[in-house]
């Protein structure tokens, strides 16, 4: 069983992002990077599946040189090898452009299962995985919490709204986008990092893969959210204030 996990490097959760001079992307110098959260869960699911049923986990990531550290982290946590698709224009590519890069790298591997996070923490398109499945010509399911082996394929648990779940069966090979929170993540260990040094990382370029970037969607501008203070102090006696609060919750906020 060969499982491919497509992962993305994104700015660290606590990073203070600033917009760069082009106004189209963030200032990357001095930024700390981390593995995209739902990709971390995709990797965890792949590793657990491998631990149960055997096989190989290969991580694939597109991005510049810096992506190497996130790839090593994935190898340290237990992935067997990696493919790094080198490109410096990730921010300018639309979801289709990124998916094409990944698909070209994955196709030669002929995987049984392709996993990726539901969406990225930075751009948050939520489409790359879905388009990737289409480009690879694989059946696809999204919002997956767990994958289990069944006769002739897999059973997956999807998260629906309001605490509802759906279990569906898929044949293999298949592609899935994974929801955060389905597993407990493992921590990176020193032994893992040391072992990762000897694991194979194959580097490919967009040109080698024959993937040209023809964006269908172009990013015009990014902006910081505006700070808005809408705190209201309700005056009067406690009874009056409570009554005013109920009034507001009912008719202004409409949560009651």
């Amino acid at each position, binding site marked *: 069983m060969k499982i491919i996990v497509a992962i993305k490097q994104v700015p*660290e*959760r*606590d990073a*203070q992002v600033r917009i760069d001079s082009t106004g189209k992307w963030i200032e990357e110098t001095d930024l700390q990077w*981390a593995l995209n959260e739902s990709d971390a869960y995709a990797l965890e699911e792949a590793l657990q599946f491998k631990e149960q049923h055997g096989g190989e986990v290969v991580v694939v990531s597109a991005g510049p040189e810096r992506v190497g550290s996130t790839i090593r982290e994935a190898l340290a946590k237990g992935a067997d090898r990696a493919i790094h698709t080198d490109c410096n224009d990730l921010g300018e590519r639309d979801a289709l452009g990124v998916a094409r890069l990944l698909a070209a790298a994955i196709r030669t591997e002929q995987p049984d299962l392709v996993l990726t996070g539901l969406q990225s923490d930075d751009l948050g398109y939520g489409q790359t995985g879905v388009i990737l499945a289409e480009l690879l010509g694989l059946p696809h399911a999204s919002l997956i919490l767990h994958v289990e082996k069944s006769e002739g394929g897999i059973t997956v648990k999807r998260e629906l709204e309001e605490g509802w779940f759906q279990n569906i069966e898929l044949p293999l090979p298949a592609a899935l986008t994974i929801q955060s929170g389905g597993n*407990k*993540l*493992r*921590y*990176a*260990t*020193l*032994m*893992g*990092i*040391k072992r990762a040094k000897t694991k194979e990382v194959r580097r490919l370029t967009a040109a080698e893969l024959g993937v040209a970037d023809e964006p269908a969607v172009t990013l015009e501008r990014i902006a910081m959210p505006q700070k808005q203070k809408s705190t209201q102090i309700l005056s009067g006696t406690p009874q009056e204030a409570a009554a005013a609060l109920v009034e507001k919750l009912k008719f202004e906020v409409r949560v009651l």
Partner: protein
Amino acid sequence: MVQMPLTLAEPAHFSVVERLAFAVLGVASGALFWRRFGPILHKILESKRDPGFRLFPLGRRIRDFTWEVLCQAKVIRERPLPGLAHAFVFWGFCAFALVTINHCAVGLGVGFLSSEGWFSRLYFYLAGAFAIACAVGILGLFVRRFLVRPRWLGEKLSWESGFIAFLIFFLMVTYLAAFFVPAASHAAALLWWLHTLTLLVFLPIIPHTKHLHLVLSPATVFLSRGGFSDIPPLAGDEDFGLVAGADLTRLVSLQAYSCVECGRCTEHCPAANTGKILNPKEIILGLRGYLNEFGPKSAEPLLSKHIELEAPFQCTTCGACEFQCPVGIEHLPILVGLRRGAVNTGTWEDDHGAKLFLALERGSNALGMQATERDKFIQKQDFPIFDGTQEYCLWLGCMGAYDPKGREIVADFARVMTYLGTTFGVLRKEKCTGDPVRRLGNDLLFQQLTEANLDALAQNNVKKIVSICPHCVRTIQEDWKEYGLPPEVEHHSEFMARHLSRLPKPAQQETIVFHDPCYLGRYRDVYEEPRNIIKGAGHLVEAPRSRERSFCCGAGGGLAFLSEETGERVSHVRASELAGTGAQIVGTACPFCNSMLRDALTATGTSAPQLLDIAQLTARALPRLDSGNATSDVRESN
């Protein structure tokens, strides 16, 4: 000149048969000793070399050896009566060395101390005095072990200890009795043989029992690493801490065989005293059991048969065990080493532990909060950002930056600094110092956090750090050294104590009991500074267990972030003890202690004393600033 009435009687003549018998028995006794001691020595020497071990400078080693071994200072100070009894036995043995060598030499016809010479005569009297002290001492220890029976000596009575005590007592009696029999008599010969046979029985028993410490512990004390909780660096790419026998170093093996099973470590251990699995004595004896069964080259995991996996993870790293140990065993590097082995290889699975590690892998602080919360706090307090012009970098730490009570402490300490006119600034970005992951044995995270912090401090050209957290202070000053050169750092108790004369004293004088934080006291040797601050703020009351013997709050070693599910809560035990002093205020000097005691004091009942950090106690007496001052702000926001 007055004739001395008593002379040590020695046999004047030995038959050939007697000499032969003595020689044969002597060789047999020595062989029996070596048959057991040889393999032990081999196991110690076969163990891995200690990474980072340096024999020099010798000054510290000679000082420790003189103080702890020759003077028996630690043995006596921590348990005065039994300690003194032990010291008498030890000094008796030392005085007897020459007498015993002569005694054996007499048997071979080459005795060199004759009862005629003035030196020998004097020496025999001196040894006689020591023999009396030693006999009284061993009798006292016998009574303690078999009649008083303190529980930390173990449930089971050790008959071998009883037998050894008898042998020692009998050795002294047979020596002393020889003063009262005529020289060259049958009685003298009988006493000589009884004394000799006792010696020859005693010798092979030594390596078979805890009395091995007679031979090993002087070396253990002399060779100990010396620093408190001195965690050795990992050696090379295949060293992940104490995973299997092959990871045991010579020092660890030597220490494992040196344990005298006195149970002082257990007596003072917060885990062992609150019903946890962990018992520091059993960890050391577990290692000894492992070495006996598998040896120092084995690949068998250390945490399986002889030591339970959970045991080292119940350690608060308070260091009471290491501080107490009279034979130089360094428990903390061993306990942290076992954790390193389990964490660095991913063997340890714990939901809370993994959560802490992931919080620090992905974020900046151990509390798992957004770093923007720290920014908001800094803005609200209007703390200046460190820009190289200020004297101090005020290190907030995770507790000071994110914990509500920790924030109050930092805010009050900042007020004190401002009042004193000391310039300070905070870093724009700060990561956890790595204290909890260092103690839990996650070397990867610790290295990442240390390097990021050292980098930020160097970039900001920080020369001096002051912090309200003893854990931060210790980690910055000692543990970061593995990866670079940290700036000078001090605890706020040291800073405030230095400026005490310029700080105002409060009008009302309340009683304040001070809780010594482990990382300030045992780890840093700071006991007087916080006390002086408290004496300035009220009447100091001492807790039953204080200073070097202070009882942990339960937070150290990363345990503040894990769950405490077995037995009684360490914090509750300590809180009841502090509340029991009747003091109006519990004074702390560590935000972790503060956090643990906060909940625990509430649980002790309605009349629980107030809980205040030394910074808060000091700031109370400062003149109030204009309305809308920083301190009241932070209180409202919580």
